[in-house]
């Protein structure tokens, strides 16, 4: 009558949100299981993979992302080196900037920023593509043909991300080092000093550790993008909501996973 009767109470809202979060967690776990099963099947029967779709996704995740990866990597290397050099110059310590840059980029910032960029670019694109297919009933069409949407739509994107993210991370690190090089050269240090300093205290474990992070982050980013796409509901704003949610969830997952990696690497001595 007065319209207030139907309004949920605070407790009710908390209950509903909690239930929605729990259901989302259950869906995510089930989806993760499905992805693992599909990846295992892909390893056993590589001939059944849709290689054309994988290559297409590789182009979109990798080649098309290269300009932004190079640009952000270069600027990060440049800014990080410049700011550090300005501070360290007061103590005559600017010579340590390359050491710091190499370590920070290879261990931490390279995989982290690359995969955040992939979440914004590719994760959202996956959510939008699959979300639109869901709205257009194409996902239903796959289901009623007896084709698994996970195998058909998700697995190629995950595999492409697994292949491309470590590669993109390497490009990002390279661009960052070029940015740092410009700062050091402008401060009067020669190229040989810069490169020897960068690799002086950089271990192979730092290099591999960063790439493993990128690999795990890429699975999270692609997986959550595809999951949000498959969860798209009907309505005008549904695809947009899925896209936003894919980016936000992707970045949150990366942050959590990075924390777990920090602890794990500390105990493993990496």
């Amino acid at each position: 009558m007065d319209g207030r009767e139907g309004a949920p109470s605070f407790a009710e809202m908390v209950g509903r949100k909690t239930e929605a979060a729990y259901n989302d967690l259950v869906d995510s776990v089930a989806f993760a299981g499905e992805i693992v099963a599909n990846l295992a099947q892909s390893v056993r029967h590589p001939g059944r993979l849709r290689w054309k779709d994988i290559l297409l996704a590789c182009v979109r995740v990798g080649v098309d992302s290269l300009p932004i990866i190079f640009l952000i990597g270069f600027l990060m290397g440049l800014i990080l080196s410049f700011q550090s050099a300005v501070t360290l110059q007061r103590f005559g310590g600017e010579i340590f900037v390359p050491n710091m840059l190499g370590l920070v980029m290879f261990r931490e910032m390279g995989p982290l920023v690359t995969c955040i960029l992939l979440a914004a670019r590719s994760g959202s694109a996956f959510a939008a593509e699959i979300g639109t297919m869901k709205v257009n009933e194409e996902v239903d069409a796959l289901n009623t043909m007896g084709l698994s949407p996970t195998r058909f739509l998700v697995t190629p994107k995950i595999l492409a991300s697994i292949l491309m993210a470590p590669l993109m991370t390497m490009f990002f690190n390279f661009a960052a080092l070029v940015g740092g090089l410009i700062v050091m050269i402008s401060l009067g240090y020669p190229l040989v000093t810069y490169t020897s300093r960068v690799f002086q205290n950089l271990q192979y474990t730092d290099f591999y550790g960063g790439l493993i992070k990128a690999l795990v982050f890429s699975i999270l980013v692609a997986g959550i993008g595809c999951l949000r796409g498959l969860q798209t509901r009907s309505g005008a704003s549904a695809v947009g909501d899925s896209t936003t949610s894919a980016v936000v969830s992707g970045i949150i997952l990366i942050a959590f996973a990075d924390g777990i990696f920090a602890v794990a690497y500390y105990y493993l001595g990496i």
Partner: protein
Amino acid sequence: MRGEPVINVRNLTCAYGDFVVVRDISFEVNEGEVFVILGGSGCGKSTVLKHMIGLYEPAEGSVSIHGRRLTGAGERERNEILRSFGVMYQMGALFGSMSLMQNVMLPLEEFTDLPREAREMVAVAKLAMVGLDKFAYNLPSTLSGGMQKRAAIARAMALDPGILFLDEPSAGLDPVTSAELDELIRSLSRNLGITFVIVSHELASIYSIADRVIMLDKQTKGIVAEGDPRQLREGSASETVRSFFNREPAHHADDGHCPVPAEEGA
């Protein structure tokens, strides 16, 4: 024309959470007939269809196709049952990144051992059946709505199923294109003996193609009429049914059924 039952729907209750859309409905679809599920907007026609094709699990009851229970079937059996029928969705649901040829070839690639040349031949033949062989290499976005729906029928027929489910085939089409699609359905039914289950509320189309209909009602959440649509129009005792078939505004106080907009099916 009419053979043995190929689809059995028993005590089907469809619900979204606590909201029941249809309750405890039962019907059969016989081999070779064109069976139409009709009713006003929001009465649950498409919901029933989606339960029949296994997209949703019923709250209660079961759906069996060719004597095999789809409801609750294991993955392998479910996939085998799914391959025994084809589905055309309301918007066509063609894969936008694939040409018509690739769309039709997809089920053949996944479920047959045919070499590529043979798959292409089958796909072209299916497209020719719906008059689209000249557009085999076009993307769906380059075609009209009617052509997309015909292409979707070609894809649904790729594995030579005995049953085709069509969700609102006339929706969004002009009367001429709609009539052409009706003619295609009649032709496929007559020449190939395909059983059609069609969801529609387009009366002109229903009179033209249907052998038998069931009418769903939003208020009672059940079947209010079953039989030949022409006979129902003339002789139904139910006011709900008569007003639907005669396109008269419903009297909510009397029967509360979903009114049919006057512009439909003139």
